[in-house]
């Protein structure tokens, strides 16, 4: 594989794990616009443990995940007091705080950034992306996943059904934190260098767009969204700086044509092999119960 292709595969894997981090909370109806902050904490934790404490990758990556999971857990309590656009603003403020802190902290290299000593190859990134994808699919098919989707639709009714809505939302923030930390740690170890400027608000916006444009109803959404957003700018590279215009138009068109995201549950069920041979129930099954 050429260096160019390897670079794209690596960033695609990191973006995919990052997208799933945001997806898990978005699937429960919570919008996190501070994704870059979580990813930065994961990346810097791994970088610091690797370069300053001399820890191997087997220690740095799990510890980075535990750190961001803990921060996700703690931050969920104040954030879940807010709703809608205020939640978006609160998480955005968190992301800004993290990058501002890292930029001014001498421990983490300030504006110069940090060199990461241990290198992780693209093979591990691909493996991590596949495992994450599998786990998120499993999560969404589980009892917790059912509660997550139910909350996304209707919080009061989920409560009536016996779902502890707050506990589920705190859990999704914690899982999202862990996944964002994983993507950050992998980024640090693969590119061997971290700088605070990379984890800016634009990154948070992009990853939220991957998820919202891909669709929040099924775990296919972030997969399609991150493929689309990582590959489209590369494909459009031949068009020079016009690619930004085409990219922008494509985003607007997506939002107009499919406001619920590219992949919906309806689309998944229509494409599923079970339904290829006309399993639609016969009209007779409709019985007399009309109305």
């Amino acid at each position, binding site marked *: 594989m050429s260096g160019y292709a390897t670079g794209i595969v690596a960033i695609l894997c990191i973006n995919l794990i990052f997208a799933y981090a945001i997806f898990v909370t978005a699937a429960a109806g919570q919008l996190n616009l501070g994704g870059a902050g979580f990813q930065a904490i994961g990346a810097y934790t791994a970088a610091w443990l690797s370069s300053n404490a001399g820890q191997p990758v087997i220690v740095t990556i799990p510890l980075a995940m535990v750190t961001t999971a803990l921060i996700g857990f703690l931050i969920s309590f104040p954030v879940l007091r807010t709703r809608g656009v205020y939640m978006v603003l609160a998480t955005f403020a968190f992301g800004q705080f993290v990058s501002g802190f890292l930029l001014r902290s001498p421990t983490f290299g300030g504006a110069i950034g940090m060199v990461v000593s241990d290198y992780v190859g693209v093979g591990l990134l691909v493996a991590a992306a596949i495992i994450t994808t599998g786990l998120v699919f499993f999560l969404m098919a589980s*009892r917790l996943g*059912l*509660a997550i*989707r*139910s909350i*996304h*639709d*209707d919080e*009061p*009714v*989920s*409560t*009536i*059904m*016996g*779902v*502890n809505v707050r506990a589920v939302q705190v859990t999704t923030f914690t899982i999202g934190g862990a996944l964002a930390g994983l993507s950050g740690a992998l980024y640090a170890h693969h590119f061997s260098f971290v700088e605070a400027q990379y984890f800016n608000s634009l990154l948070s916006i992009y990853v939220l767009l991957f998820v919202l444009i891909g669709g929040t*109803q099924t775990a296919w959404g972030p997969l399609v969204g991150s493929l689309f957003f990582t590959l489209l700018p590369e494909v459009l590279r031949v068009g020079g700086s016009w690619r930004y215009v085409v990219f922008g138009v494509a985003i607007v068109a997506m939002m107009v044509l499919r406001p619920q995201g590219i992949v919906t*549950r*309806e689309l998944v*069920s229509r494409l599923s092999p079970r339904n290829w041979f006309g399993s639609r*129930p016969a009209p007779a*099954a*409709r*019985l007399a*119960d*009309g*109305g």
Partner: protein
Amino acid sequence: MLLEVEGLDVRYGRTHAVRAVSLSVGQDEVVTVLGANGAGKTSLLRALQGMVPAAGGQIRFDGVDITRMSPPQRLQRHLALVPEGRQIIISLSVHENLLMGAYCRHDAGVSRDVDGIYDRFPNLAARRDMPASVLSGGEQQMLAISRALLAKPRLMMLDEPSLGLSPLLVERLFGLLGSLRDEGLAILLVEQNTQMALEVASRGLVMELGNVVLEGSADALRHNDRLAAAYLGHAAPAAGPVSPPATPPSSNGRA
């Protein structure tokens, strides 16, 4: 008594929606709460399920004080609510909606009970994997009741289940409630369809502006002039509080 409510108050800010309401529901008994819009019936049920806090009074269920318990805790004690307007989760499939009904349970019998629901309602079985949004109004109500049944309730509370259903489906709905009653399920039924509600219930209460203004056996209420004048849509002859059987109300019970 399975459910005992004493002096329950519900307030939304300055609005006093439920004022010192006391009621009780026994094992395998159907009790109906009647009243016009804004009488406080829905607020009463919401407080019983724990969606709004009680501002005063006590709720006892199966001998245990549940006044301060959360809705999931009450559900685990087998007190289930079928909310107003059905409130099924439209982006989940029919089957997933049923599984949500059993969410509070941790026993192994869920899939057997879900199969039991499909046997009872073949329409739901036929739409098992479709999004619940494709169901008709009647089917949605069946799904909402089935979902509550899967929580294995000892007492099921229903908030105006007949709302928006055609007369034929209303007939069928009350038939279902009657058979659930005969199977031994206790029911607290909030209704505006007074006539049908009093046919299935053994006792009833009438609420007005948050207060219980009338209470009695279903028979007595059916022949009560005040209730007849207010909700059964025909003028009553002047008489005492409980009059002898007059002309049976013939119109549809809607006020």
